[in-house]
């Protein structure tokens, strides 16, 4: 896209701040996904140190991650953040100039779990029943797509706006008939609270996508630093993609909400290779996903301005990084090159 031609900063910033969804593990924050791998590898910190730049990680809890990161971007307190499609788009639409600079793989699965004892096999069976979802969270889009495909509308259900914690309690207590949520649904199923009747495994294209987002001002002023950060994430993705690192990665991930067994099942039966989960490549699928999100949020008046992908997605860093690191062709996706359409 066209960006204002601003000169690179003469001086490097003192710190680079990366925010990411995190969990508390043994009293300390553990980051979600690749961020923790980046930390563990220590490469980024070392590279930045050589340039006299400190690396600062900002852990944000999942429940308020979106708003916190958006506010941090707006206040220029953070430079990069790994988070979801929906909140990032909201920020962009609200005038916070950020853009997606890598993908974080195929995205997250969403699940539909129904309470014990309810004879429902599909979403259609839930018509007129109560369905809990946390409004405004990224997986609402997935639900919208599912409903759309079946010719259903939110108004066909008795919708309860519940946060996940409350939703699981209500499900267990039989106070709602179904919950639409993320992979914790597997855990709930294991605990006997209900049965999963649908997931994005049947429609991988509806998965919620996450990626690394950056403040545009920062990337234009510090392209080299940005490249370093992106390269670190690519290296982390490469590490995680190695089948021999699978167990180690799952162990890291299990420090979040879900035990390894659940993660295994979340990752299972998806076809393709293990490494597909981690591809940083921004491909056309990624771009069209954001087009969809943009359209949906605008049509549903969740945002006031429609965001054009070309202003919002910048594949140049990741493309250059893959090149620099000699990883061209390692992941199967076809990178978008040139301006995003």
């Amino acid at each position: 896209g066209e960006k204002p031609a601003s000169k690179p900063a003469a001086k490097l910033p003192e710190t680079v701040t990366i925010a990411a969804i995190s969990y508390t593990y043994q009293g300390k924050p553990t980051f979600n996904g690749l961020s923790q791998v980046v930390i563990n590898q220590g490469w980024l910190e070392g590279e930045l140190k050589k340039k006299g730049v400190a690396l600062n990680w900002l852990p944000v809890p999942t429940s308020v991650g979106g708003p916190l990161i958006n506010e941090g971007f707006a206040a220029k307190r953070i430079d990069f953040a790994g988070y979801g499609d929906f909140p990032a788009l909201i920020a962009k639409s609200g005038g916070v100039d950020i853009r997606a600079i890598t993908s974080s793989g195929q995205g997250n699965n969403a699940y539909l779990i129904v309470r014990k004892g309810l004879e429902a096999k599909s979403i259609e069976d839930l018509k007129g029943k109560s369905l809990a979802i946390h409004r405004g969270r990224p997986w609402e889009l997935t639900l919208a797509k599912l409903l759309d495909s079946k010719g259903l509308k939110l108004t066909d259900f008795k919708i309860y706006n519940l946060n996940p914690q409350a939703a699981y309690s209500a499900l267990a207590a039989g106070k709602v008939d179904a919950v639409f949520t993320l992979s914790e649904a597997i855990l709930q199923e294991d605990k006997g609270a209900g049965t999963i009747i649908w997931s994005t495994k049947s429609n991988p294209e509806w998965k919620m996508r996450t990626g690394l987002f950056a403040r545009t001002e920062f990337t234009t002023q510090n392209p080299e630093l940005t490249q370093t950060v992106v390269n670190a994430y690519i290296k982390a993705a490469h590490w995680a993609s190695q089948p021999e690192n699978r167990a180690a990665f799952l162990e890291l991930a299990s420090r979040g909400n879900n035990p390894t067994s659940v993660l295994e099942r979340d990752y299972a039966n998806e076809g393709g290779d293990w490494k597909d989960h981690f591809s940083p490549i921004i491909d056309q699928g990624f771009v069209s996903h954001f087009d969809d999100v943009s359209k949906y949020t605008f049509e549903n008046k969740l945002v006031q301005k429609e965001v054009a992908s070309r202003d919002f997605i910048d594949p140049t860093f990741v493309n250059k990084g893959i090149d620099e690191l000699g990883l061209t062709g390692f992941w199967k996706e076809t990178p978008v090159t040139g301006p995003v359409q």
Partner: protein
Amino acid sequence: MKPDLKLILSVSSPLLLLIVWQAVTAFKLFPPEVLVSPTAVVAAFGEVIATGELQRHLSESLTRLAGGFTTGASLGLLFGLALALSKTVEQVFGPTFQALRQIPVLAFIPMLILLLGIDEVFKIVIIAKAAFFPVALAAYDSVKGVPKSYFEVSSLYRAPWWVLISKILIPATIPNILAGVRLSLTRSWLVLVAAELIVADSGLGQMMEMGRQMFRLDIVMVGVIVAGVIGFGLDRLFQLLQAHALRWKTA
């Protein structure tokens, strides 16, 4: 003379705040994405009123608040008095009361959902819990501080407990109890909004939370101001009550 200064000061201080706010945003000292200007808030205000959203959210919240707050505060008053007046009640319930009043009601939500479901009763119970404790504590603590001589006069005339409470203890402790009621209103608001975040489709809290999720800080500010103004109004009401109850001091 004096009342004039009072009026001037109490009107000018909020006004000054408003002017500073407008100035800060006009000079773009902070990014407009986060510190929205008063004019933007007024615009958002117009928007949510025009769509009827504000009215809907507000009436939902106020209904919940009215139910939960009045139940919680009045039960709190009774319980606090009982705790202060009866040794037995104090011995049996005192420790539990002191421990329980420190625990955020939000921590009990899973259990409450199990017991009460997720409909209005549940929300009202949560607010009632939040309203209960400040009033109970204020009543307990200030009745404990009532001079012995008042109890002696009352006991001399063998005033029944309701006379003791209504004619002696409440007047003697009204400033502190009302302060407790005012705090309990604050806390009810807080918990109401929190509860609406967790389990609701409507209400001021939901409006603010959605505003935040959707990065509409102008709408969040509308919520802030509406909550502040309503809280202030209710608070004024209590102050008037207090002035009425204390007229024996100045009459």
